[in-house]
């Protein structure tokens, strides 16, 4: 056996430290609450309601990203135009802006002092303290993750496949639905998972736009503030557990289909 160089041991130790750094707190938190306590927590209507709200607002954000983001991702993957870099940077903006700032920014458009806010309130749409507001915030923060994932998915499909399809008589629409979509849907699913995972974890922006109705992260924060660590942990465990299960199911569904093809 050859002697490993010091460099090798440095990489290994750094790796171990990082693994521990990520896993230790999570494992500690997940194992802290007793089984009885977990059982009691899930019977709490507020907890169930907040987790459910979190999941379906995040799901809605992903759906909106899917509908509006897919065509944009396609254009960005396929064409080259002036200002493309600018558009791409704008898409990435929500990732780099501090979360509370996102909330404040959205409110400054949706508030009474802005004509859009005025228009919305005349239409009976309320952003402040509403489910609509939560969905708007989550879409804002989640969209970039969807678009980036799907864009690279489209980029990995050779444009020649589309060209061949056109030359065989298919219109652009038929080509998209028969060739591009079937080849890209897995990356869309990845995009949806990324987007909703990001959305579900949002706290800072939501808490500014809508403290109530309460999404799970806000509830966890409130329990922590009012009752302490011990009471916020079980909610956190349930949120993590349910999210992981959902993502795992999605993952299995996609893997299953991959084997067929």
């Amino acid at each position, binding site marked *: 056996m050859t002697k490993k160089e010091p460099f090798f041991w440095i990489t290994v130790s750094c790796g171990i430290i990082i693994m521990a750094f990520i896993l230790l707190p999570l494992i500690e938190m997940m194992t802290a609450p007793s089984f009885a306590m977990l059982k009691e927590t899930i019977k709490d209507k507020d907890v169930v309601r907040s987790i459910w709200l979190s999941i379906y607002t995040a799901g809605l954000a992903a759906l909106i990203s899917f509908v509006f983001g897919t065509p944009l991702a396609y254009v960005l993957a396929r064409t080259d135009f002036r200002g493309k870099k600018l558009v791409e940077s704008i898409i990435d903006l929500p990732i780099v802006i501090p979360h509370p700032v996102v909330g404040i920014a959205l409110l400054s458009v949706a508030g009474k002092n802005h004509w859009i806010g005025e228009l919305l309130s005349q239409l009976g749409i309320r952003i402040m303290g509403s489910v609509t507001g939560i969905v708007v915030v989550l879409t804002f923060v989640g969209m970039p993750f969807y678009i980036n994932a799907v864009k690279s998915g489209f980029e990995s499909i*050779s444009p*020649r496949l589309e*060209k*061949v399809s056109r*030359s065989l008589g*298919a219109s652009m629409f*038929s080509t998209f639905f028969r060739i591009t979509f079937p*080849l890209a849907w897995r990356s869309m699913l990845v995009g949806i998972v990324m987007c909703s995972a990001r959305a579900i974890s949002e706290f800072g922006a939501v808490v500014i736009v809508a403290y109530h109705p309460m999404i799970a992260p806000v509830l966890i924060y409130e329990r922590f503030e009012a009752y302490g660590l011990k009471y916020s942990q079980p909610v956190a465990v349930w949120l993590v557990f349910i999210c992981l299960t959902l993502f795992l199911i999605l993952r299995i569904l996609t893997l299953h289909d991959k084997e067929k*093809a």
Partner: protein
Amino acid sequence: MIRIRDLNINLKEFNLFNINLDIGTNEFFILMGPTGAGKTVLLEAIAGLIPVKSGSIYIGEKNVTALAPEKRGVSIVYQDYSLFPHLTVRENIRYGLHFHKINKDRSDETFDRLVEDLNLSYILNRFPLNLSGGELQRAAMARALMVEPEILLLDEPLSALDPGFREEIRAGLKKLHRDSNVTFLMVTHDFAEALSLSDRAAMMNNGKIIQTGTMEDIFKRPDSTFVADFVGMKNLFAAQFRETKALTGNLEIELGAKPVDGHGYIAIRPEDIVLSRRELTSSMRNSFEGNITEISDYGLYYEAGILVRDITFKSLITKSALLDLQLAEGTSIFVSFKSTAIHTF
């Protein structure tokens, strides 16, 4: 039939300038040129897959310049074959039928014939992922021909295949063309391939067509140094013409007939240059004494460089000739060639 008039294309990386081309119905036409010459761009322009800046493209009598690709009746086979990875070979071949109103009996008949001709029956239910290059190539050909196109564009269809395989596929391609009334337009940068498949070709370089003509014209009578070089005319010298003679360096070469222009180039294929130990005398021959400066091994043959005064001739020789003549660097030898082997331009 394809007719291209003053076609200009202006894309970021690719440009075509003033392309004029006429290809007859059911012709097998070859487009040649080095990588980056714009051959694929021209194919894609004919198929309608890239925007045209100016000029026009006719297919048959119809001006198709502004027509969408799906309405042109032009099929394309790419170098990488571009089979749809999520469809089986059968679904790939029949893909175009979704968009064409072809009577079912007739399409089934075409399908069976193509599957038979291209020997595809054993892979119909397989996905492209695990097929060999030759299988992919045949499937792509079948898919392209299934929709009964007027024109079939082939972008270096043989370059990704094993050399041993090419021969066979080339023969198949020739038969496929003979049995159909489709116009074939094929891109290649392999001159031997071009010679064996077609009788007319165009040569491209830097986005322009620089020579169009029969294979024989291009092979034996290139009209530019670029084409001469491309087709392997390794003996290419600038010359001045006087009566029936060409002056290049200190050499006076007998051409046998008076060239049209005053000055230009002479070109001689290396296989037309004969080496001998004694001077070959004949009225039609040019014979000069020189010294071998280098011998390069090309596997199946050797190439010798012979310095005659200030001109270096290149000659192709077989291994046995090399041994018979006992050639080595520094050997003094006679270089001879017929005046009919000299091309002037």
